[in-house]
């Protein structure tokens, strides 16, 4: 198996509505920045992997067909991945596999969502036959899981507020973040409207228009790059069904298995000590402590203590979402890739004002469906 490295990262300006660009324009904004970062052009790319969440968000069926022109994909292989919210991560992993298998030398991974062209609340409330119509958007699905977490962990009620304030403060350091809430405060979050009890308005992710792109290459090509690269140490994916008897949706087995496989492949025995920074898919504030446990950074029911202790803030012992995370920027199809890409920026030392000092090993994490699809990677400054 060959080594694989990220040599280019790009993202678009994110906003609630990008009326100034078409779908193709939005995607190209991220692609052009990734290519420029990698000092390559579209002609240098051997294959493209495109990911996004449901086509109904933009009302374009299989948009990779229309986007082939703007991606310069004519005459090249183009794959379209869709694994719900985890798709940005799965898309990157597909690109990694193409490099590792030795099929291509330079692969462009792209993910996007232009949520303003649809009504996400509607699109995220599917009416399946024979299922109770309880799904009021993603928050409607996840709020009961958060309540279950609070009950069983005994976490104090302000943990969600702390995560929301922290991530929004981090976002102020990230020029690409969608939300720049300069007057964010504990009071502002705690007094915001209750949307899905116990999740308040400011504990909830925004709907964003945005795109992310990465250029991945093999060992040989990566060594010719003058700047720092992010070596992909390990990737892993796991899926489990939405419902089965005894499923723990608060701390899903699929996520624990995915993390265990990831650490094993990356040679990590103590994630809490060996991972310097983590970009986790936290669309609702309380998912930070939940995922800290699921990912093995904390014992079961203890994840909230890391949040309460400030360990997950920039400057803490394990900064989580220094970019501002999904709580600050959420173009759904791209959100997972943004986590992966931000992890790569951190180990390359290119994260700007939200850079974690001396970050050598970073985790990128994405999840989707009813907390059932997981994709993760570990990137590092050095090859394993």
């Amino acid at each position: 198996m060959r080594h694989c490295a990220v040599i280019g990262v790009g993202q678009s300006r994110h906003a609630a509505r990008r009326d100034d660009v078409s779908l193709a324009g939005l995607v190209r904004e991220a692609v052009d920045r990734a290519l420029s970062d990698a000092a390559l052009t579209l002609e240098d790319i051997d294959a493209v992997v495109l990911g996004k969440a449901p086509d109904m968000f933009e009302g374009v069926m299989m948009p990779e067909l229309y986007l082939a022109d703007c991606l310069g994909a004519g005459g090249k292989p183009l794959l379209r991945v869709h694994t719900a919210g985890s798709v940005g991560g799965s898309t990157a992993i597909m690109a990694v596999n193409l490099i590792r298998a030795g099929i291509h030398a330079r692969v462009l991974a792209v993910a996007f969502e232009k949520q303003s062209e649809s009504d996400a609340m509607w699109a995220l409330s599917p009416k399946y036959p024979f299922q109770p119509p309880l799904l009021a958007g993603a928050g409607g699905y996840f709020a009961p899981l958060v309540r279950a977490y609070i009950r069983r962990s005994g976490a104090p009620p302000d943990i969600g507020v702390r995560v929301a304030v922290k991530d929004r403060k981090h976002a102020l350091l990230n020029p690409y973040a969608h939300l720049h809430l300069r007057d964010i405060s504990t009071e502002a979050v705690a007094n915001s409207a209750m949307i899905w009890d116990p999740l308040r308005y400011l504990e909830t992710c925004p709907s964003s228009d945005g795109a992310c792109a990465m250029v991945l290459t093999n060992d040989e090509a990566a060594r010719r790059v003058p700047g720092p690269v992010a070596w992909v140490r390990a990737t892993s994916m796991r899926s489990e069904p939405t419902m089965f008897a005894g499923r723990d949706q608060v701390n899903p087995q699929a996520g624990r298995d995915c993390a265990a496989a990831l650490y094993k492949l990356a040679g990590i025995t103590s994630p809490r000590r060996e991972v310097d920074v983590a970009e986790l898919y936290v669309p609702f504030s309380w998912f930070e402590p939940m995922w800290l446990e699921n990912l093995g950074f904390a014992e079961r029911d203890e994840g909230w203590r890391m949040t309460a202790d400030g360990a997950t803030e920039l400057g803490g012992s394990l900064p989580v979402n220094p970019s501002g995370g999904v709580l600050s920027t959420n173009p759904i199809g791209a959100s997972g890739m943004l986590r992966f890409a931000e992890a790569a920026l951190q180990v390359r030392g290119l994260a700007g004002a939200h850079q974690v000092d001396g970050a050598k090993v970073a985790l990128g994490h994405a999840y989707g469906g009813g907390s059932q699809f997981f994709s993760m990677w570990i990137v590092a400054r050095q090859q394993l």
Partner: protein
Amino acid sequence: MMAAREVAIVAFAQSPSVRREWARDDVELLLPVIQDALSQAGVRKEEIGFTASGSSDFVTGLPFSFVLALDAVGACPAIEETHVEMDGAWALYEACVRLSLGDVDTALVYAFGRSSLGEPRDVLGMQLDPYYVAPLAPDAISLAALQARALLDSGRATERALAEVAARSRRNARSNPNAQLSGDMVPETLLEAPYFIAPLRRHDCPPISDGAVAMVLAVGDKARAASSRPAWIRGVDHRIEPHGLGMRDLTRSPSTALAAANAGVAQGKVDVAELHAPFTHQELILREALGLDGDVDINPSGGALAANPLMSAGLIRIGEAALRIMNGSAHRAVAHATSGPCLQQNLVCVLEADS
């Protein structure tokens, strides 16, 4: 792509294609097919190292339609699994890539499409450029008719040649228990039928089909253990063309030709070819792009003109080609899948028996 390891198809199962699957949902449609494929390969679900599927939300009319389909796999405990919003043929490509990495030896690939839930010719129109083309509301059959007209005008095909493709497809389908349309037809009679959307007649177009398909892939000795005559994937490649209909010569398929060259189609005699040509004229374009001569047995299953479950029909072509290898009726086969308006994206797969 030539896989770094020897990868073979060792089992193939499909549901009969029907005009409308009334009684079963996606999971119920997939369950027996997946069970059948696993049992043919003699593999328990726990032994599958990688699972990939293909389907489309627009076909089902629901966002995240693939999510519940995972129930059909019994993914508990959790599995390594992914999904392409494409025909299942591309899920097979992804599985080949994954198997090349060396740490996983078997893969399950499946696809499903219940086209009857919508009006496919209008649904497929939603694939078009959303700003300049889709608002004009051209439907998929009208676009195919445009392509057929261009081919007829080029002088490289006649309406009779199109009718011959339809007649042969329906005749071949008589021996395929999973086909939806079959019959003993002659081109002369077909040419008497009125135009549907000129120059296409109804028999030049695919039926609306519901169906599902599953396959098991394995490497090296695992494949030999699972099948007495595995269908080895000697090469597989896929290429896309620009989307704009004015940016390409609709009478040719350069992406198919390029994929065929990369997959190594010309590196041996082809006994049988399963081409994903939902319209009669597209078979003629594909045969030329693939460089298939007259003695190749084309679409012995009846092809997409006899059964066309969206997102599954391409993977079924690969399965039907593999079946010919596995049952000993062919030594070397070519399978093809297409996606997008007027053959925009194409995948070519070369299958061989052990020599």
